[in-house]
């Protein structure tokens, strides 16, 4: 097993709301006590719906935001509090590709300068000729013609812009990429080009990926380990195939059942979804208000992650009181 590259331990992020009428309800726990490990060369996925905290977590890992609790270690170094040179060194190792490449690329910079910028920011002593050579190399590698070097982002299509964003992220030769919904803004016929490119690049360069997405099928294609989040907390984590093949937590089951697929299914079990996402809670399981298996205890005590699954490998864990008592029946109780 490869050594851990990124270790996230007990990370939390709370936001304080100023203008909330009711006292005592002015804190939002966007991310709450999240821990997982990304090993070198591995692809880890984070899945969840809007409000699950997955993008806040990505921003924290990229250190665009600071965590309010917990620690983040990258190659053994604590980066949660890193500053100055340490932070700079971290950003040489970890780069990001965001969902909306139109807003991720400066509209007033030419493609050549956009791709070269990370290296220039890092104040390397690379000569301009060498930078040009590397820009051309990367453009070719992501499947773009070197002729677009002098274009502006608005002259490119969505797929081309996302390729530019990928090229830029590789300019400083990072060891890890954080991919936040990298293909969800792309058309289906362009999506597979970008997914194949990401997988090829990973194989060639031994890259480690942390991929955030709401589409489970895409996560299944790219990742080997999956973290499922609900309202800021991890509800289940484990090997991707195991989680999607035999989801344990009631929320994961609902998510898998609700994902569109190219087949017709009669009588899908959507009973667990008879209500909408509620707000975060300090007491009990965040999913309890929607969960058909919920008991009194679920509303009072936050469940901890415990080993689950048929194979009971230490890697597959879910946070559910009901799961610990008995294995859930296939259909929810009436």
């Amino acid at each position: 097993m490869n050594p851990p590259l990124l270790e996230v331990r007990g990370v939390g992020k709370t936001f304080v709301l100023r203008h909330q009428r009711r006292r005592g309800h002015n804190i939002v726990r966007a991310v709450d006590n999240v821990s997982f490990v990304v090993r070198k060369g591995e692809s880890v996925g984070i899945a969840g719906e809007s409000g699950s905290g997955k993008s806040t977590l990505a921003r924290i890992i990229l250190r665009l935001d600071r965590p309010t609790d917990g620690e983040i270690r990258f190659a053994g170094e604590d980066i949660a509090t890193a500053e100055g040179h340490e932070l700079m060194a971290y950003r040489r190792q970890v780069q990001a590709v965001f969902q909306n490449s139109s807003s991720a690329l400066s509209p007033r910079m030419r493609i050549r300068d956009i791709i070269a910028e990370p290296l220039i920011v890092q104040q390397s002593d690379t000569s301009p000729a060498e930078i040009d050579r590397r820009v051309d190399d990367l453009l070719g590698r992501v499947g773009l013609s070197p002729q677009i070097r002098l274009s502006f982002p608005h002259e490119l299509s969505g797929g081309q812009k996302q390729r530019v964003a990928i090229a830029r992220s590789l300019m400083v030769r990072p060891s890890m990429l954080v991919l936040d919904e990298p293909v969800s803004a792309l058309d289906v016929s362009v999506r597979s080009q970008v997914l194949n490119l990401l997988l090829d690049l990973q194989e060639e360069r031994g890259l480690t990926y942390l991929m955030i997405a709401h589409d489970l099928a895409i996560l299944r294609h790219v990742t080997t380990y999956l973290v499922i989040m609900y309202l800021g907390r991890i509800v289940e984590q484990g090997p991707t195939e195991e989680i999607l093949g035999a989801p344990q937590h009631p929320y994961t089951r609902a998510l898998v059942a609700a994902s569109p697929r190219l087949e017709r299914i009669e009588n899908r079990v959507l009973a667990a979804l008879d209500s909408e996402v509620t707000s975060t809670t300090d007491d009990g399981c965040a999913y309890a208000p929607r969960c058909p298996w919920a008991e009194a205890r679920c509303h009072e005590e936050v469940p901890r992650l415990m080993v689950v699954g048929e194979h009971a490998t230490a890697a597959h864990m879910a946070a559910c009181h009901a799961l610990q008592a008995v294995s859930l029946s296939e259909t929810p109780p009436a």
Partner: protein
Amino acid sequence: MSNDTLLEIKDLRTYVHMRAGTVRAVDGASFIIRRGEALGLVGESGSGKSMTCMAIMRVEPRPAAVIEGGQILLEGENLIDKSLEEMQQVRGRRIGMILQDPLNSLNPVLTIGNQLIEALRLLEPGASKADLRRKARAALERVGITNAASRLDSYPFEFSGGMCQRVTAAMAVARHPTLLIADEPTTALDVTTQARFLGLLDQLRREEGMSLLLVSHDLGIVAETCDRVAVMYAGRVVETGVTTQILSAPRHPYTRALMFAVPHLHGPRTKRLYQIRGEPPSVRAPTVGCRFAPRCDQAGDLCRVQYPPTVHYANGDTVACWLHVPDAAAPAGASHTLPLQRVDSVVTDAEGCGK
């Protein structure tokens, strides 16, 4: 036109005239919707699916967008010939519509109740306020909103996206239309909310006995909800078919490519996805030949110079592809080993998913 046809689109052309040139957003689209059926209209951005919907409702963005030709036959009446006043009798009453962004479809400064009552009053101009309010409450309950009585006095911002979309659905069916057009109704919603909303659409369609035109870029969404599917590419409908046919044996190379280009949640995992080369075309210039030919692995010389005629099958399926034209000179240069090797390996994958 047979009796069970509710809406027939014939060779519809809607062009958008701009300073930079003319965009042929819909360029010869044809399909039919039968009574009571759900038809899924699938295509990528720019394929013309939304412009088609707007043309059916006659709300194409005038003056830039102009319906240049074709027919939109609703129960035999051509909607293109109707005046705007006559169209008001069609909108809402005979055709209802749900748009992508529920928050933009609702008036932010009116309560949910008042907006529902506005829709209901059109149906019963003489009804009393209390009566309308009772009906509005029933309409909310029907689309699965709990505490409907107190929710009537809420504003749209107090509702989640899924609940707002339920309200727009309640309004769209308030006047019992025979056709409901839903243009990407779940794109702004989360997966679990999406599944429930699609369930609601299906329930409403069955209760009302209406037809549904569900527009989506996601073949998966359409696969689960619709009886038949129409696939659009660059302003034209390239294939229509019964959903099971489209899923098990798509005829058009574009449909096939779309299916194999997406990863699946179940079944064997493919290492690499099938890749469609190039990008969707710009629809500015008038083009000759099949619009998909530059990206098609099976395109031959004929495909590049002449648009294929539409082939009709006995069950009503259609496909516009030279590969399916009987007795046509085989597209010179086309490889007849269909499809590519890579797709071959994925075919078994898709079959695995279907079980």
